[in-house]
Every structure is written in C-alpha cells, then in structure tokens.
C-alpha cells in the first residue's frame, strides 16, 4: 500500500508563530485528509484537502487558522497559524486509495 512521509515529526513553537506540516505520498491518491489528536482525546477531522481548490473544513475549523494546500495528487500541507498552547496536539495526514492510511504524525507543542 501507499506510504505517506510527514514532516516534521515534532516541533516546539512559540505562541503567535505558525508551523507548516508537509505530507508527501509515494503514489497518487484520490483523497487526502488532515486530523488532529489533542492530548487524551480521539482523532478529529480538520478538513479534506482538495486538489487544486480550497479545502473543505469540518465544523469548528476555519481556513484562517488552518490553511491547507494540495497542489497535486501526492502532496499536501497544513499550516497551524498564530499558535496558542491550545494548539498543542498531534497532527496527522491521511491518504485514501483503497483504504485510508496515515502519516507518522507531527507532535506539536506550543509554549
């Protein structure tokens, strides 16, 4: 099955700054998604990354805070903007071909 390389694997950031997370898939996939896992909680879908157009955000998530790009069928980025300590989470990208598969995750700590 396809493999996603996600980077960075972890980062510690100052509040008020932004971090961009990248995901590269080793083959073309139809769908890509971004999830967040806050401490002690489950994975929550942030948005669907649409190739060549604006992402589709779930309730509670907005483009200004989590801008997403997907320029082609193998690559996507998620930016966490103007970070606060509440953004400290694990962020995961997912691709879908015959099934959903995941990147290694990015563990973000905002101080």
């Amino acid at each position: 099955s396809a493999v996603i390389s996600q980077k960075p694997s972890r980062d510690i950031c100052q509040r008020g700054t932004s971090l961009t997370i990248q995901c590269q898939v080793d083959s073309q996939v139809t769908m890509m998604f971004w999830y967040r896992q806050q401490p002690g909680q489950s994975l929550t879908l942030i948005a669907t990354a649409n190739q060549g157009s604006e992402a589709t955000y779930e309730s509670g998530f907005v483009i200004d805070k989590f801008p997403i790009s997907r320029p082609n069928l193998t690559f996507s980025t998620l930016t966490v903007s103007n970070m606060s300590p509440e953004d400290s989470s694990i962020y995961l990208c997912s691709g879908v071909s015959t099934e959903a598969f995941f990147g290694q995750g990015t563990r973000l700590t905002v101080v």
Partner: protein
Amino acid sequence: AQRVTQPEKLLSVFKGAPVELKCNYSYSGSPELFWYVQYSRQRLQLLLRHISRESIKGFTADLNKGETSFHLKKPFAQEEDSAMYYCALSATGGGNKLTFGTGTQLKVEL
C-alpha cells in the same frame, strides 16, 4: 452526526487469554466500520474493516447492526498484540472521512 464509543481506555489481559475490545456506534445510515491499530512508535494502520470479513493477526470483528456494535475479538492474546486500538466509522457517501473512537490501550501481560 455519527459517533463512535470505546468504553475502555485500558484493557489488560494475560497472554493466551481471550480479548474483546468494545466498540459501539451511532449513525442513522449504513456505516462502514474499521479497526485501526497503533503499535509503539509506529504509525496508525488499518487492522480490519467489516466489509472484508477477514481475520487479521487472529483478530475478527462482526458488525451487529441491532446492537450497533463492532467489537474486536481474538481468542488467544499474544504479547505482540499490545498496542492502541481505534474503532472508526465512515458514513455513507462520506468519502472515506473517518470518525474515530477514543481508543483502547491493550496490554498483554506474560
């Protein structure tokens, strides 16, 4: 909106004992149900999905629409089964967007 419930945060069993990880869901349509597993320091990966009706690594799960459950079972636990297990649901026409439960940490003791 759909919801997935995994009532146990931690399940501890002895090697060779049966394992059952519980998963209940709420959804008005016909869902697709999955079990994902995350071993220590590895990425989240698909274990099994209800439509394939497979046994993977000795694990099985049957979708019970009457009880809205999708419990994961294995007759004899192995030490290498120790991991975090997530039940997930994809809604009809959901385009493979997944709703996850909170996960159950399975610990198999010797």
